[in-house]
């Protein structure tokens, strides 16, 4: 890798509580509860001790099933995202609190006030990872069922974000004066949000929403919570750069990652976003060792525990959509074709690979070229970005990835809840701080400021009448 010519970028770090997935080693002796608040408090405080930017929670609105029965091999069950983040605000001071929340099974009025409330209650530390869904299986838990057609999920998400932004902007910054002498609580009775006037007044109409009235919650410290999104397809990327402050990158290898990074910057500029307004953050994990060989051995050991033979079969079933329990995990890949249009084998988890036939063809090549067994392949293709080595090596790798524009930082998970991040904070963070790649103290008052994001105060042009 070449030494970068620009000034050193500060690495953005998020801490990710790995819960419901095969990465979490629940049977390890050190593994703690994935529900008890003490686990969340430990991880959040560890992240804050390491001067991380934020804590991150994923979402799953239905228990996963395989062949019609609850999937019991991985961690099952999680707390509700927003109450946990609100509680974490009480035990941390600076750490951003980012929750994954779905635009399909929520309504803008309710979610906008919850996120605004979290922002108030955390003193400006709220973030929202926006996800879309068209999953009829999950829909069985909600009023409208599986109502959303796949092609409409971005339409809904885009309108949902436009609506929430409008709601967040209804109360002016100076709407409340609370002057005891004059008896004036509100500055004036009219609002800025349109509709029929008065503080909090709004109206929004589109294909998915036709809503109006008055928003209950004053403008929050950040104005708008920080928005994160995932987007890989060209449509998804364009959608993501329009309204989000950070985008997940799925790319592990520097070449791919740099290409994605450059593409996002280009698209963001085209969408009128100022430079640096859209951050790129891949999820990643790490394995430390006292020597490189020790780290590699630990990594191998952890990966084999994460992807047992049974787990390997199930991971491949998410693409094959066939019962693969009869195939030897240590043997070759299943010789049958995938059946993407058949009744679903696995329910309730996001499908990452959209074209099953193409994916399987690529995997067959990959397995042949490397001599992978079924299980080896699963370990390879379902792994996260892993940084493996001594603390010094991992610090070097993380720093080089960011300084070479592979990303702006990472959302770091570990295989152990809740103590997995401890050794990273103890051993890698000081090395990154030494070289100026990580803050030693928080300088911003809000998550948005700590991330170096611009003030989102709207200009009238941002709210054209729909």
């Amino acid at each position, binding site marked *: 890798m070449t030494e970068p010519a620009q000034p050193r970028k500060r690495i953005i770090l998020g801490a990710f509580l790995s819960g419901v997935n095969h990465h979490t080693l629940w049977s390890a002796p050190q593994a703690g509860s994935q529900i008890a608040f003490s686990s969340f408090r430990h991880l959040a405080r560890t992240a804050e001790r390491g001067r991380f930017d934020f804590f991150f929670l994923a979402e799953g609105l239905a228990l996963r099933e395989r062949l019609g029965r609850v999937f019991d091999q991985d961690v099952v069950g999680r707390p509700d995202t927003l109450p*946990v983040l*609100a509680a974490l605000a009480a035990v941390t001071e600076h750490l951003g609190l980012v929750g994954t929340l779905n635009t399909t099974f929520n309504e803008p009025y309710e979610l906008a006030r919850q996120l605004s409330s979290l922002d108030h209650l955390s003193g400006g530390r709220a973030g929202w990872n926006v996800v879309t869904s068209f999953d009829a299986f999950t829909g069985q838990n*909600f009023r409208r069922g599986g109502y959303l057609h796949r092609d409409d999920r971005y339409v809904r998400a885009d309108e949902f974000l436009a609506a929430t932004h409008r709601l967040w902007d209804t109360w002016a910054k100076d709407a409340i004066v609370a002057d005891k002498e004059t008896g004036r609580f509100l500055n004036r009775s009219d609002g800025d949000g349109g509709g029929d006037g008065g503080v909090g007044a709004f109206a929004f109409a589109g294909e998915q929403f036709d809503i109006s009235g*008055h928003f*209950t919650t004053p403008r929050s410290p950040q104005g708008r919570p920080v928005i994160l999104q995932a987007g890989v397809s060209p449509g998804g990327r364009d959608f993501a750069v329009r309204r989000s402050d950070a985008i997940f990158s799925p790319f592990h290898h520097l070449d791919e990652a740099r290409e994605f990074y450059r593409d996002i910057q280009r698209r963001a500029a085209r969408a009128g976003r100022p430079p640096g307004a859209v951050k790129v953050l891949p999820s990643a994990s790490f394995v430390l060792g006292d020597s490189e060989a020790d780290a590699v051995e630990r990594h191998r050991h952890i990966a084999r525990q994460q992807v047992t033979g049974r787990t390997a079969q199930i991971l491949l079933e998410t693409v094959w959509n066939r019962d693969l329990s009869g195939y030897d995990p240590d043997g070759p890949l299943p010789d049958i074709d995938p059946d993407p249009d058949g009744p679903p084998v696995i329910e309730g988890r996001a499908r990452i690979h959209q074209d099953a036939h193409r994916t399987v063809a690529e995997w067959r090549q990959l397995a042949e070229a490397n001599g992978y067994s079924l299980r080896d392949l699963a370990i390879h293709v379902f792994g996260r970005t892993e940084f493996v080595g001594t603390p010094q090596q991992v610090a070097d790798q993380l720093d080089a990835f960011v300084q070479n524009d592979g990303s702006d930082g990472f959302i770091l998970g570990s295989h152990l809840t809740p103590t997995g991040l401890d050794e990273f904070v103890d051993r890698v963070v000081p090395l990154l701080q030494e070289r100026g790649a990580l803050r030693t103290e928080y300088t911003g008052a809000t998550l948005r400021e700590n991330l170096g994001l611009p003030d989102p105060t709207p200009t009238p042009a941002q709210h054209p009448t729909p």
Partner: protein
Amino acid sequence: MPRSSVSFPGSSYPLHLAVALDGVGWHPAAWREQRARPDALFTARYWADLVATAESGLLDFVTIEDSLSLQSTLPDGPDGRIDRVRGRLDAVLIASRVAPLTRHIGLVPTATTTHTEPFHIAKAIATLDHVSEGRAGWRVQVSRPAENRHFGRREVGPVSLTAPEGPGVRAYVEEHFAEAEDFVEVARRLWDSWEDDAEIRDAATGRFVDRARLHTIDFEGRWFRVRGPGIVPRPPQGQPLVTLLAHGSLPYRLGARSADVIYTTPHDEDDVRAVVAEIRAAQEEAGRADTTLHVFADVVVLLGETRAAAEERAARLAERAGEPFTSDAPIFVGTASALADTLLEWQRAGLTGYRLRPAVLPDDLEAVVGALVPELRRRGVFRGSYAPESLRARLGLPRPANRYATANRPATAAR
């Protein structure tokens, strides 16, 4: 310690006291009082301080008001007034934010059942129970018609609450309380959809949960179908406390069928007797005669060291508000000692507790904690310390059996 084996000794004091927190207090001019903090209303610190004060008074629980519309003096929408407190934070999140800072007091936020998802509210209250280690409750509330357009998902005819006898009002109220009943039923089923010991972490078989101890709830009703199971393991209390403010026969019946605590608004002792009798009859009719169902009265409290001091405060507030103070609940103006007399008289008429609504915060909350509670203790009717118990246990409610648990489960569940 596994949740299922925690046992809580019941409280031996028969009088239960809760406080209803709403903005800067229930009087419309409360925010202009000297010690009121209207500028801090939207900060965590404000709520943490209030709940800490309530906990220092050993109160059973606090409720937190909320609504999916702005406060208004009109029943049908915003009033455009700029001289009153307007704006709210989400009550469930306030309660969650305060939970790690408190140890004993129950936390009972308001959550609306009309446009929201039973699945979301059930997991939020369950999570509050996990975060607070067994202190969560829920004040169930239905929407006003003006909230419909905030969601735009259902047609509502011309219903005006300004004319309570007008067309459609009765149908509206019946329909929305019926939906609330289904909503509570779904939440209760979701809380039971995980048996207490569902998480087995059996390394030998590689199973994290025993799926025989996870249950779909398969609810089908007029407003929603919900399949389940929930995503949150069964809360520490099994079933968090379900509470409801009720002003008439319809909500009394809903409370008698579905709730653990009903807040009522009787105006004298005879009224107390009538309300309690009606609720107890409804309870019997609902087949819950053997279940503990608390009937509380809501009382707005405006206290002073002397009666004259309290009346002087009331007069000052009324003058600032520009109109006399009215409320759906009885308003008590006077000393803590006289308030204690009234509370105990009404208790003898059949109530099991009170939800006091402080007219001014923090003044009347501090008077409850600093004067009323010591007075009740002197009379031997209120606790002198918290027992280490769940909110349900404090209210004498058992930890309920799980409706889905099978008594004789095979030693090894089917795989």
